[in-house]
């Protein structure tokens, strides 16, 4: 980024300033009309990005919102422009928590909330603990760092399918260790069906996302001046006091972004439950992404699925806005 900016700004500040304004002779600069140079060029350069953003994000999202107001079932998917209007019916059905579809959506939402809180909370805890422990220089530190980052580097599908094998009832290594080797359970447990599937989901999600927290926090820790710790230890602060009074407050800006990003990723996670459980997740692990997928693609009711997606989008926007409002207010307060 800086490499492209620096030469051009240097150029402008140097010899060519006169010719640029005079507009008569400028051997080193291509002739670009002032109007574009002053007003339009940045927009022109931004255009490809804006077009792609529209294509990839905004337009599909707008179409999704439009679909949520249509009765788009299998009878209309071939010519979906002509599907009949559903008004707010899809939304009414989705949030009617006394009826089965609304109830199932609410259940799925609550499962997802519990899953997200556990996964993000534990990912952060694991990340911060490992990052702090690896601050000290010791033999094998770089090897440990590399090992910790492996889950982040593995392709999701390959990693989760391996977990699915490990969680198998008959031949999985988890039951082999817990039941056969350690004798912790009376009989081999089921991890991919029934209530334990929630535990399996949290474990895989945690395994997948804590290295990201570790990476971010490790980078943030590098920025805390060593002098602070030295001064604190001279003043008699113990390790816990140092963590509470120096490390955690210094990590605050990184934590704010990290927790938000992890929250959004985890709440929307589709790959983990889909690879682990297939098209129909057990009730205890019925995450909202899979639930919406099933409502749209498996039962072929795209209108209803889109309405649920829009509700999810609104919820995530609301949470993000409140979070940013609260954290930025807190920061301003602490700055003063």
């Amino acid at each position, binding site marked *: 980024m800086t490499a492209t900016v620096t030469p051009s700004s240097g150029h402008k500040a140097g010899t060519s300033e006169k010719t640029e304004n005079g507009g008569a002779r400028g051997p080193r600069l291509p002739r670009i009309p002032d109007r574009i140079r002053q007003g339009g060029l940045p927009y022109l350069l931004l255009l490809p990005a804006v077009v792609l953003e529209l294509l990839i994000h905004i337009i599909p999202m707008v179409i999704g919102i439009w679909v949520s107001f249509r009765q788009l079932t299998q009878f209309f998917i071939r010519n*979906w422009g002509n599907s009949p209007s559903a008004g707010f019916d899809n939304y009414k059905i989705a949030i009617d928590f006394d009826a089965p579809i609304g109830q199932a959506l609410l259940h799925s939402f609550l499962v997802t909330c519990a899953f997200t809180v556990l996964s993000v909370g534990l990912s952060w805890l694991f990340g911060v603990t490992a990052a702090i422990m690896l601050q000290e220089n010791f033999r094998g530190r770089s090897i440990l760092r590399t090992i910790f980052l492996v889950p982040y580097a593995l392709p999701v599908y390959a990693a989760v399918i391996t977990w699915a094998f490990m969680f198998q009832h008959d031949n999985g290594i988890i039951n082999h260790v817990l039941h056969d080797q350690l004798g912790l359970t009376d009989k081999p447990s089921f991890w991919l069906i029934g209530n334990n599937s929630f535990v399996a989901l949290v474990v895989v999600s945690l395994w997948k996302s804590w290295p990201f927290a570790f990476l971010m926090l490790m980078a943030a820790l590098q920025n805390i001046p060593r002098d602070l710790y030295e001064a604190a230890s001279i003043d008699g602060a113990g390790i816990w006091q140092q963590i509470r009074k120096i490390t955690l407050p210094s990590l605050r800006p990184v934590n704010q972004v990290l927790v938000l990003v992890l929250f959004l990723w985890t709440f929307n996670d589709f790959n983990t439950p889909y690879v682990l459980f297939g098209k129909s997740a*057990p009730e205890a692990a019925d995450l909202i992404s899979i639930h919406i997928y099933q409502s749209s693609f498996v039962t072929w009711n795209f209108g209803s699925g889109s309405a649920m997606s829009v509700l999810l989008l609104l919820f995530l926007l609301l949470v993000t806005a409140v979070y940013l409002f609260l954290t930025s207010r807190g920061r301003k307060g602490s700055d003063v």
Partner: protein
Amino acid sequence: MRTIRAAAAVAVVSALTAIAGCGGGSSSEGGSNESPKTLTYWASNQGPNIEADKKILTPELKKFEEQTGIKVKLEVIPWSDLLNRILAATTSGQGPDVLNIGNTWSASLQATGALLPWDQKNFDAIGGRDRFVDSAVASAGAEGQDPAAVPLYSLAYALYYNKKMFADAGISQPPATWDELVADGKKISKDGKWALGAEGGNLSNNIHQVFVLGKQHGADFFDKSGKPTFTSDGAVAAVKQYVDFMAKDKIIAPGNAEYAQNQSLQDFAKGKTAMVLWQAAASTFASQGMKPEDWGVAPVPVQSGTPGAGQNTNSMVAGINIAVFKNTKNVDGAKKFVKFMTSDEEQTLLNKTFGAIPPVKAAQEDPAFEAPDLKVLRDTLATSAAPLPQVANESQFETTVGTAVKDLWADAAAGKPVTTESVKAALTKAQQQMAQ
């Protein structure tokens, strides 16, 4: 400011232009002949794996190319992806010219209007509707409408059993009723060995089994007007009987509750399970190292008596149909290809290779289909198989009831009681989800 607006307008217009090509499907009725020299064909996975299917089909496609000059681009698609791919193709209008579909999806896909209807004229172009077995054509679309596809491979369920395990347990012949199966099963199920295999996590398989048991208990899952009737006494009894093989009779290993990728066939091939209810499993057993003399085939048991119509139904009409996408740019070529694939010669060859029964009457005459295992399938299809409900929301049925059965398997595996009430509650929930 004007520049910003202009730039924004350009961005929106170019983005809209780009998506215009992929939206809204197409309104063409019956395809065109713009590219008469090529066809794209999506084949379903019929053999042990995708590569094997490619090897089997490629020489046949070459033969077709030599006869007609039309080059066929083949893609073999796993069952887990096929329906989603077809849905995406339907929505975008960018699909193959010819494709295989599971025959249970026929009515659902027919309702989308994406497939070429096989009216009298189109059937005549491939040699006439009379060439096909009636029950197979009946499973190619809703009653009273032109079929959405043409039968390609027919299949039925049979009881496959391990001869050595039966002999070791002192059982001289395969069970003909469920009571006999449970009694035999209890003799076999010990010392790490189990009597029956199931694919508890496979929604379609669950549906196939409970549909047949439902028939045997006098229940259909839909009434005449197409409304779901999942909670009838017969339907509840059917689901309970199936799950009770694990919950009460203990002749299915609890681990089967999470099987969804044909693990029960592996268990059978390894001698861990003595019986499976399956369609045309011969080629899979061979690929797992079993010899033909190791296993036997018998009709799927009934409640009492012998297999037949009505309450003695013992299989669904399973099978694969071949369909033409309405948006095809080579509709004449596509019909020629369907004619080729349903010709007597190709029907004999392909059905023999895949262990299926030809839905073309003349091809059934081939002595290859007299082999004991195929004879069981053929007799079942002819006398005691019924098509799954040909209703537009069949795929929702598979999902909702299939999931209900899957959850009941999970209860059974965990040792929770499976009662008439719990089965009824699960089916009530499934039916409520269908209502919307």
